[in-house]
Structure formats: C-alpha cells, structure tokens
C-alpha cells in the first residue's frame, strides 16, 4: 500500500492524472504478473494489463475507499478482464485448435521467462489448476497477500479462502509430483 494512498486516490478521483500515475507505478507489476501467469503470453498480458488500468482510470469514481483496499479493486477488474479474454478466445478458437494454441502459448511463455527448470515446472503446473486455485496461488504465495485481502478480491469468506489455499497447494504438489515422475 502506498503512503497516503487514501489522499492519492481521492485526488485521482478528482481527475489528477499524476496521482493515478503513482497508483499505476505502484500496482502495475503485480497486476501484470497475475495476468501473465493466467494467460501465459507476454504480449497478451501487456495488452490486458493496459486495459485493466485504463478501465480503472476511467471508472475510478466508482471505487469506494471504505471497506476495500485499492489493490483488491484492481485485482477484481483484472480477474474479470481475464475471464472475458478466455470467453472471447473460446468463441474464436475451434476445439481442434485448442491443443496447438496452448502449446504455442506455453512455448512463448517458456522463452520469455526465467529458464530455470523448476520455475518452468511450477508456472506450467499453476496453469493446470482451475481458475479459483490459480488465483489463490498467485495472490497468496506469489504476491503474498493476506487471507483477508484475498477474501475481498475473490468475494469469499476467509474460511473458504483458507480451505482453497490448502486444496490449491495439495493439487499443485500432485501435479508437480506427476510431472517429475514422468
């Protein structure tokens, strides 16, 4: 969280672009990682991240400071944008093309990310989890958000988030163990 974030948001809501620029600088990397791990393609991730912040800038007046941190609001926009992205992708891609498409995405991602084999294994395994579990892994274990923040972003109770954390890690380990044994 930024120092004086409330004041900065209030000024951004009054139309001060410079203040929104500060929010952009502070949050863009984590939103980008969130999107990148979910779509596995740098170019697509950049476009989606840009759209997320554009939407945030244009609708910042809808953000109500009481109750939710600004990051939760951004993650919600990002999450919805990724859902729309896959919905559009599904409509545009035939079933026969899915396998090849996924392979290309994975290959691009592999080239552009860290070359360490363990990291590759982990990020590939994350993409095999369902959407909710991907969100939990990224937000909790990569971005180090608290359970409370994740509950606000995902619109679930803290108890449900804790349970989902457990399941997500268990599934991720199973996937990794299976891949290692192959």
């Amino acid at each position: 969280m930024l120092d004086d974030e409330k004041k900065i948001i209030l000024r951004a809501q009054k139309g001060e672009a410079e203040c929104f620029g500060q929010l952009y600088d502070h949050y863009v990397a984590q939103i980008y990682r969130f999107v990148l791990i979910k779509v596995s393609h740098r170019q697509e991730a950049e476009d989606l991240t840009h759209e997320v912040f554009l939407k945030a800038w244009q609708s910042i007046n809808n953000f109500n400071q009481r109750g939710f941190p600004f990051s939760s609001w951004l993650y919600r926009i990002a999450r919805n944008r990724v859902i729309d992205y896959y919905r559009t992708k599904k409509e545009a891609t035939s079933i026969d093309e899915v396998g090849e498409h996924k392979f290309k995405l994975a290959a691009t991602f592999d080239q552009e990310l860290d070359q360490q084999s363990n990291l590759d294994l982990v990020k590939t395994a994350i993409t095999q989890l369902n959407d909710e579990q991907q969100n939990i892994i990224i937000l909790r274990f990569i971005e180090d958000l608290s359970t409370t923040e994740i509950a606000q972003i995902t619109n679930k109770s803290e108890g449900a988030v804790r349970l989902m954390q457990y399941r997500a890690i268990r599934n991720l380990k199973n996937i990794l163990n299976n891949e290692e044994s192959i």
Partner: protein
Amino acid sequence: MKNLFKNLEDLRGVNPNPDFLHRSKTEILATYQTHSSTSFRISQFKNRLVESLSFAAALGLTSLLFYLTMSGLSGSSSTVITQQDKIQFDIQLRDAKYYKEVAPNVYMVVLNENMEEEEFQEELNKLLGK
C-alpha cells in the same frame, strides 16, 4: 519439488517490460477522463446515500427484530401465566375432590381407630352435613 514455496516466491521476480510500462502509462494518462468534478461529487453523494440507506435499513431491521423479540417474550410470559393459573386451578379442583372423597374416609379411619362410637358418629355426621 522440495522448494515449492521458494519457486513461487521467485515468480515474484517476473516484471513487465519498461518500454511497455512507459507507453501504457502515457497512453492511459493522456486518455480523456470521462468524469468531471461534478460527476465526482455526484458519485460521492451516491456513495454516502447508499451508506446512509444501508445504515437506516440495518437500524430498522434491528428495531423490528427487537420489537418482535419483546412482543414474543411478552406473549410467552402471558402464556406462561395462563398455564400457571390453569395448573393452580387444576390443583385446587384435585384438592377439592380429595377433600370431598378421600380425606373424609381417611379422617373416618383415623377417628375410627381412636374415638368411641358416638364421637365417631358425630364427626361423621358433621362431615356429611347432617
């Protein structure tokens, strides 16, 4: 995978391209912002209105629950009192029946054991209202 948590943390090192950041930020901030100070005030007013209505609704609901609880309690207490009266009335009826039917017999038995015949008959007559 022994260092799963470490590998997850390492993914935090993935950062966007600086050229992309510069281009994206410049484009976004150059975009005409659809809201004005008037719309900001309207939005703030709307937020406050929603909060006030939420508070009023919560207060109203609490009052209603309180009223229902209290009226329920008073209803229950009157029911309890009615039931208590009924029990007492039943007990009185049972007592009357006892005194009318059983007690005289017991009394008569006791008298019978301890009194002379005449005294016994007198007492019996009293009980019988003779």
